[in-house]
C-alpha cells in the first residue's frame, strides 16, 4: 500500500520483530499509564458534572448571551474538528502521494481524528442547551411534518461532520483489519482471542482478500481527500455565510482548512512523542517521521500566517468601515491578549522549525507543537468572540468570558479525548503492522532483510 519498501530512513527490521514490537504495546498497562488514565477519568467527571449542571439549571449558566451567542462551546467544536484533520490528511492524502513516512504514524493520527471528531460532536449537543430535542437537526420523516433547512450552513455542518466521522471510522476500521488479524494470531487462547477473531472478520491475507482490500483502500483515500477539505470549509461557512464583520469573507474556507491541518499535525506530534517513548517503539517512529511532520507543520503555519495578513489587507481594501473597525479592535481591543497569543503561537513560534536543531529535538518539537495547540484554540476564540462582541451598532457591543461551567466542560473534553485515545492504544495496535512490514524489504533468500 505504501510503496516505500526499502527506504533506509524508515529502518530495516525482520517481519517478526515488527509484530513483536507493535503488539508488545498491548501488554499489561504500567503505573504511569494507569495514573494518566485515572486523571483523564477525573477530567471527564468534571466535564460530565458541569454539563449535567448546565442541563439541570439552563444554558444561562454558560457565559453565552447577547451579543455573544456563540461562545466556548462553538470555539471547542471548531477546535476539536480542526484537531481531527491531521489523521485523514496523513492517512489519505499522504497515501495517495505515496509519502514514505506516513506508514508508522498514520494509525495514531487516524485514532486522533476519530476521537477528536467524536469529542467535537458533543459540543453542538451541549450548545443547544435542550439536548433532548437535538434530533430535530436530523433529516427524517417525523410526526411534526418538519424538515431541516438545507439552505442553512448549520445543517451542512451536521451533514459534513457526521459524514466525516462515518467515513473516517470506516477507513480506520478497514486499515485495522489485517492488524487485528495479526493480534488475533499472536494472542493466547481465551476470550481476547475470540473477540479479536470476531473483529478481524476472519481475515487471512489470501490473495483474493488483498486484491479487493488494495482496490478499496485507494478508493477510500480518494473519497476521504475531498472530504477532509470540505469539512472545515463547511465549518468555516457557518461564519462566512453571515454578514458579521470579520466573518463574511471568501478566504475563510482555505484559511480554516490550513488552520485545521496545522492544529491536527501539532496534536499528532504531541501524541507521538510520549507514545514512542512509553511503548519503546523509537526504532519504528523515528526522528525522520517527526521531522517530516515538523516540516509539514511549518508549511501550514506559513499558510496560516499569510491568511492572518490577508485578512487585514482585505479589511483595509474593502473600504467597509465595519470590517476595518473589527480588524483594529482585534489586536488593540478587549481581546488583544488572545489575539497576540494566536499570532505568536501559530505564525511566529513555528518558524523556529526552520532551525534544524529545533525540529530534530524532542523537547523542541513537543513544546512548539503544544504551543500551536494553545494558539489554535485562541484563534477560534478570537474569530468567534471578538466579531460577535463588536458588530455594527456600538450600543449592542458587549464582552464575553468563560464561566466556570464552560471551563469544566472544556477540561472535560480534553479528558474525554485522551481517555479514548489511551484506551485505544491498549486495545488495538497503535502502529500499522501490515503497512510497516510493507515499507520494509521483503525477506529474500539472497540476504535477510
Amino acid at each position, binding site marked *: *500500500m505504501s510503496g516505500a519498501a526499502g527506504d533506509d530512513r524508515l529502518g530495516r527490521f*525482520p*517481519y*517478526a520483530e515488527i*509484530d513483536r514490537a507493535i503488539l508488545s504495546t498491548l501488554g499489561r498497562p504500567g503505573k504511569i499509564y494507569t495514573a494518566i488514565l485515572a486523571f483523564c477519568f477525573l477530567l471527564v467527571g468534571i466535564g460530565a458534572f458541569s454539563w449535567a449542571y448546565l442541563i439541570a439549571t439552563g444554558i444561562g449558566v454558560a457565559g453565552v448571551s447577547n451579543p455573544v451567542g456563540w461562545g466556548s462551546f462553538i470555539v471547542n467544536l471548531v477546535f476539536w474538528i480542526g484537531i481531527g484533520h491531521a489523521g485523514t490528511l496523513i492517512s489519505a492524502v499522504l497515501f495517495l502521494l505515496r509519502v514514505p513516512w506516513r506508514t508508522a504514524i498514520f494509525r495514531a493520527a487516524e485514532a486522533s481524528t476519530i476521537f477528536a471528531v467524536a469529542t467535537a460532536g458533543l459540543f453542538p449537543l451541549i450548545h443547544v442547551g435542550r439536548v433532548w430535542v437535538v434530533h430535530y437537526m436530523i*433529516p427524517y420523516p417525523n410526526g411534526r*411534518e*418538519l*424538515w431541516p*433547512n*438545507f*439552505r442553512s450552513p448549520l*445543517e*451542512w455542518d451536521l*451533514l*459534513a461532520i457526521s459524514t466525516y466521522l*462515518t*467515513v473516517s471510522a*470506516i*477507513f480506520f476500521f*478497514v486499515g485495522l*483489519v*489485517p492488524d487485528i*488479524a*495479526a493480534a488475533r*494470531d*499472536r494472542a493466547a487462547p481465551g476470550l481476547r482471542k475470540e473477540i479479536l*477473531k470476531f473483529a*478481524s*472478520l*476472519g*481475515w*487471512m*491475507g*489470501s*490473495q*483474493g*482478500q*488483498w*486484491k*479487493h*482490500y*488494495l*482496490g*478499496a483502500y485507494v*478508493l477510500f483515500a480518494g*473519497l*476521504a481527500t*475531498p472530504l477532509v477539505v*470540505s469539512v472545515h470549509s*463547511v465549518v468555516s461557512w457557518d461564519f462566512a455565510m453571515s454578514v458579521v464583520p470579520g466573518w463574511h469573507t471568501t478566504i475563510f474556507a482555505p484559511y480554516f482548512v490550513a488552520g485545521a491541518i496545522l492544529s491536527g499535525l501539532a496534536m499528532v506530534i504531541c501524541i507521538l512523542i510520549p507514545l514512542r517513548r512509553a511503548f519503546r517503539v523509537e526504532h519504528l517512529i523515528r526522528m525522520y517521521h517527526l521531522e517530516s511532520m515538523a516540516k509539514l507543520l511549518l508549511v501550514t503555519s506559513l499558510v496560516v500566517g499569510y491568511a492572518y495578513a490577508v485578512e487585514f489587507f482585505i479589511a483595509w481594501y474593502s473600504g467597509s468601515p465595519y470590517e476595518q473597525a473589527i480588524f483594529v479592535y482585534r489586536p488593540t481591543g478587549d481581546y488583544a491578549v488572545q489575539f497576540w497569543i494566536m499570532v505568536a503561537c501559530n505564525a511566529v513560534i513555528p518558524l523556529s522549525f526552520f532551525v534544524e536543531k529545533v525540529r530534530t529535538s524532542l523537547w523542541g518539537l513537543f513544546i512548539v507543537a503544544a504551543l500551536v495547540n494553545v494558539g489554535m484554540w485562541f484563534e477560534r476564540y478570537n474569530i468567534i468572540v471578538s466579531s460577535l462582541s463588536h458588530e455594527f451598532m456600538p450600543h449592542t457591543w458587549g464582552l464575553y468570558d468563560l464561566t466556570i461551567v464552560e471551563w469544566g466542560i472544556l477540561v472535560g473534553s480534553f479528558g474525554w479525548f485522551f481517555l479514548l485515545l489511551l484506551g485505544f492504544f491498549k486495545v488495538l495496535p497503535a502502529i500499522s503492522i*501490515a*503497512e510497516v*512490514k*510493507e515499507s520494509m524489504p*521483503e*525477506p*529474500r*533468500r*539472497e540476504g535477510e532483510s
Partner: protein
Amino acid sequence: MRLPWQRARSERGLLGVFEHHDALVECIEAALESGIEVRDAYTPTPSHEVQRLMKPGKSPVRFLTFAGGISGLAGGLALALWSSGVWDLVVAGKPVMHVIPFMVVGFELTILFGAGATFLGLLVFSRLPWVWFPARAYREEFSNDRFGLWLATTRGNEDEARSLLERHGALSVEELGGGGG
C-alpha cells in the same frame, strides 16, 4: 450440488510454508508453468508480485463505489429539493429551491454513500466476514513472517507438486485432505 466452500473443503491439496518472498513467487511461477492449480497464497502484507501472478486486473469494488456515489448525489439533491417544497416558505429572503446550497448536501452524501458502497463491496468481493475461519490451509504464522502456498492436486500430480514446493525451499509441506475447516 456442492457449494464452492464445500468443494474447497473436500479438495486435495498441498500447503507449502515459505520463509522467503522470492521463493514463494518463483514457486507460483513454476506451478503455473507446469499446469498445477495454485489455489491460494497467504501473505502477511500485500505482495504486488504475487498479485500480478495470481489476481491480475483491477478489483470490481470501484463499480460499487461509483454506483454509491451517484446514488448519494442524486439522493442528497432529491432530499433537499423535495423537503424544501413540502413547506413553500421563503426564509431569510432566499429562494425556496436553489441548487447551489443543495450541492453541499449532494456532495456530502456522495462521499458518504460512496464510502459505504466501497465498504460493502470490500466485504462482498473478499467474502468477509469469513465465518468458517480459519480456512484449512491458513496458519497463524501467515500474518507474521511466513508465506503460505496452497496447491490443488490430483492423484496424478501430487508427487510433482510436492517436489516443486520442496525444490523452491518450502520449510514444510503439509497434505490437505478432505474435510476440515
